[in-house]
């Protein structure tokens, strides 16, 4: 029996109280004003636009480039991630690299890469590929770790590493790797859409300008087009079409616009821009320039990283409890246990809308409607994450084995399903905590003063050294939350529960062969 460390014993109840308290304490510090003069009128114009989409506004090439950036980014990130995953449990360096890569949001990567590769396809593809490499590495490593090792354990002694992998490890998990990669392709489509908001020529580029001019009919058409792309993903993204799509994407990439020569940009970026200002004038050997560097770093930490991190956490904590509350409200509405077949259809519809509406775009739109404050960001984060968790809980509720005389309606909800699913609920919420935090930081680009605000300001003033230091701050904050979340999940004994959206639709390894479901791992005894 391991004793809990420095904190009192953690239960579902005390963990919930802790998060509720953090969220409530954050509320007075958050700017929740609605500053738009006529939010109602603007909202009616939006609805009118949605009801009369203007499909002639769709730029075919922006659709093509949205898909090509996503496909190439996922292929590159997936390949690199697979290689890293193989050494994940052996190398601390690789684990740290993967964590650092994924702790920086693809929008930040894009803003940075633009300094080197300009507004080019390389920026779009790498901005997806780099953070996705980190995510793929971690998830693939988890899949390998959880895989059935029994066939591997009886391979002849001295079988080579590569043969061992190709025969007894890879085929066991191939189905799961495939399902997850295709799911990530969908995430990458959302990411490339959002990259358009910072200037890359994807659907998001046009969406942003239509939203800005309040041309909602045109924006709605683009959005519907994107929904169709996501909704039909299973038809066009299959294991055998992905290589073809990748090759076709290479030929269809847009021309780079401006930015000058990449090599001279790289030289300038690493030789000048990213080196902290106090160290630039070749003063690396002087104590005083290091002293100046120290006060430079301290000033940025105190004036930007500190306040930015506090604001990011305020947003994330409020959004987290709002998402949790919404999920608990929504899940009975998408469950057959409560609404029968209707619940099933509602769930599917909600999932499609949520999965194809990037949070960033939602926050952008709500900011347009409601005026600048933290409220639109909270609503966007709560809607997106609350709906995903609600959907997943609804599916879990459908699968619960209830007794024949189980209560109905509110009693079923309060006494049966919610208590039973509460651990699973906390597992989902704790897992999404880090994702919410990453998004909260990014929303700074929209004008809320989270960390992203300072990063965006620094980059637009070409203070790349400052931006780099700020990104280190973002990475440390999101890795800390990730570590804390994993610690909580371990102490609440929630580690074994599924947390990823893809796991719900994904391949169930036990399904592929009935007789294998009970195959015990052949453990090597410790003599």
């Amino acid at each position: 029996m391991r004793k809990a460390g420095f904190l009192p014993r953690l239960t579902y109840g005390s963990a919930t109280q802790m998060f509720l308290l953090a969220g409530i304490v954050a509320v007075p510090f958050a700017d929740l004003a609605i500053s738009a003069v006529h939010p109602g009128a603007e909202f009616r114009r939006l609805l009118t636009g949605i009801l009369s989409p203007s499909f002639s506004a769709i730029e075919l090439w922006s659709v093509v480039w949205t898909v090509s950036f996503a496909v190439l980014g996922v292929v590159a990130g997936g390949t690199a991630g697979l290689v890293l995953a193989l050494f994940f449990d052996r190398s601390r360096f690789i684990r740290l690299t993967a964590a650092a890569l994924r702790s920086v949001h693809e929008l930040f990567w894009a803003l940075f890469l633009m300094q080197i590769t300009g507004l080019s396809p390389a920026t779009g593809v790498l901005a997806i590929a780099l953070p996705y490499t980190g995510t793929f590495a971690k998830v693939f490593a988890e899949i390998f770790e959880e895989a059935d090792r029994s066939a591997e354990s009886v391979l002849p002694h001295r079988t080579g590493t590569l043969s061992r992998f190709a025969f007894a490890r890879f085929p066991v998990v191939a189905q799961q790797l495939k399902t997850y990669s295709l799911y990530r392709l969908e995430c990458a489509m959302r990411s490339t859409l959002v990259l358009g908001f910072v200037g890359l020529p994807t659907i998001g580029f046009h969406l942003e300008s239509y939203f800005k001019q309040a041309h909602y009919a045109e924006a709605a058409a683009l959005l519907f087009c994107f929904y169709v792309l996501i909704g039909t993903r299973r038809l066009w993204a299959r294991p055998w079409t992905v290589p073809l799509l990748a090759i076709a994407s290479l030929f269809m990439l847009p021309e780079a616009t401006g930015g000058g020569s990449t090599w001279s940009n790289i030289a300038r970026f690493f030789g000048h821009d990213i080196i902290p200002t106090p160290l630039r004038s070749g003063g690396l050997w002087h104590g005083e320039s290091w002293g100046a560097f120290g006060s430079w770093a301290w000033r940025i930490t105190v004036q930007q990283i500190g306040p930015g991190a506090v604001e990011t956490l305020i947003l994330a904590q409020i959004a987290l409890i709002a998402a949790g509350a919404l999920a608990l409200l929504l899940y009975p509405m998408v469950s057959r246990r409560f609404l029968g077949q209707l619940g099933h259809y509602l769930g599917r519809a909600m999932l499609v809308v949520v999965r194809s509406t990037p949070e960033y775009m939602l926050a952008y739109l709500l900011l347009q409607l409601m005026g600048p404050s933290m409220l639109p960001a909270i609503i966007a984060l709560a809607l997106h994450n609350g709906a995903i968790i609600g959907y997943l809980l609804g599916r879990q509720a459908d699968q619960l084995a209830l007794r024949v005389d189980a209560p109905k309606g509110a009693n079923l909800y309060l006494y049966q399903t919610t208590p039973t699913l509460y651990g699973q609920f906390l597992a989902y919420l704790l897992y999404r905590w880090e994702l919410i935090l990453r998004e909260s930081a990014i929303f700074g680009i929209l004008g809320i003063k989270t960390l992203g605000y300072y990063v965006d300001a620094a980059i637009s003033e070409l203070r790349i050294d400052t931006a780099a230091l700020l990104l280190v701050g973002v990475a440390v904050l999101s890795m800390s939350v990730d570590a804390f979340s994993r610690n909580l999940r371990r102490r609440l004994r929630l580690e074994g529960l599924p947390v990823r959206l893809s796991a719900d639709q994904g391949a169930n390894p036990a399904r592929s062969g009935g007789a294998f479901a009970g195959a015990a791992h052949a453990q090597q005894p410790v003599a």
Partner: protein
Amino acid sequence: MAGAITLDKVSAGYQGVPVLHDITLSVKPGERLAIIGRSGAGKSTLLNTIYSRYPERAALIPQASALVANLSVFHNVFMGSLDRHSTLYNLRALVWPPAAEIAAVVRVLEAVGLEEKLFAKAGELSGGQQQRTSVARAMLNGRPIVLGDEPVAALDRVQGDAVLRVLSERHETKIFAMHDIRQALEHCERIVLLEGGRIILDEPSRQLSYERLLPHFEGELQ
């Protein structure tokens, strides 16, 4: 002369929970040995312990057939010989099996009566067919010692007898964990009885009888 297998006062367990206590066992090359005992007596642990000590000389037939569900029967059996070829050859065999390897795999599959399933997916086989695939893999492996953990438990009596016979022909030393007392007495010349992780009986089969062993299995179906 050194025996094929020597264990001297070996204890073993999983995650700190002891399963085997002070096991002393010596098996000569060519012997046919059955390890019997109730479930939970430590039979599998004993086999796994032997396997981990003699990885160069032993082939294991684990209790759960331990096949790769997504690969064909051919590939699963071929895995028994991965250490005999170069990595490049193995990778080629994964995509395009060489005729010589197919012939070798068919030979062992014929011995267990499964040759018509050569390119069927292992995950689509019945439990008995999976077990015979696992046996064929150990036969292709061809190490002198075969360690079978209930190697015929999923087969009917006639099939089981046949499979035990071909295994005996193929491997020099045979150690089978078994729960069927009659089959153990019939196929093995020496019986080791485990109870609570200790050897409580180690005698030649001809000195034993079904009736004498039965009381040790009280409450279990025979």
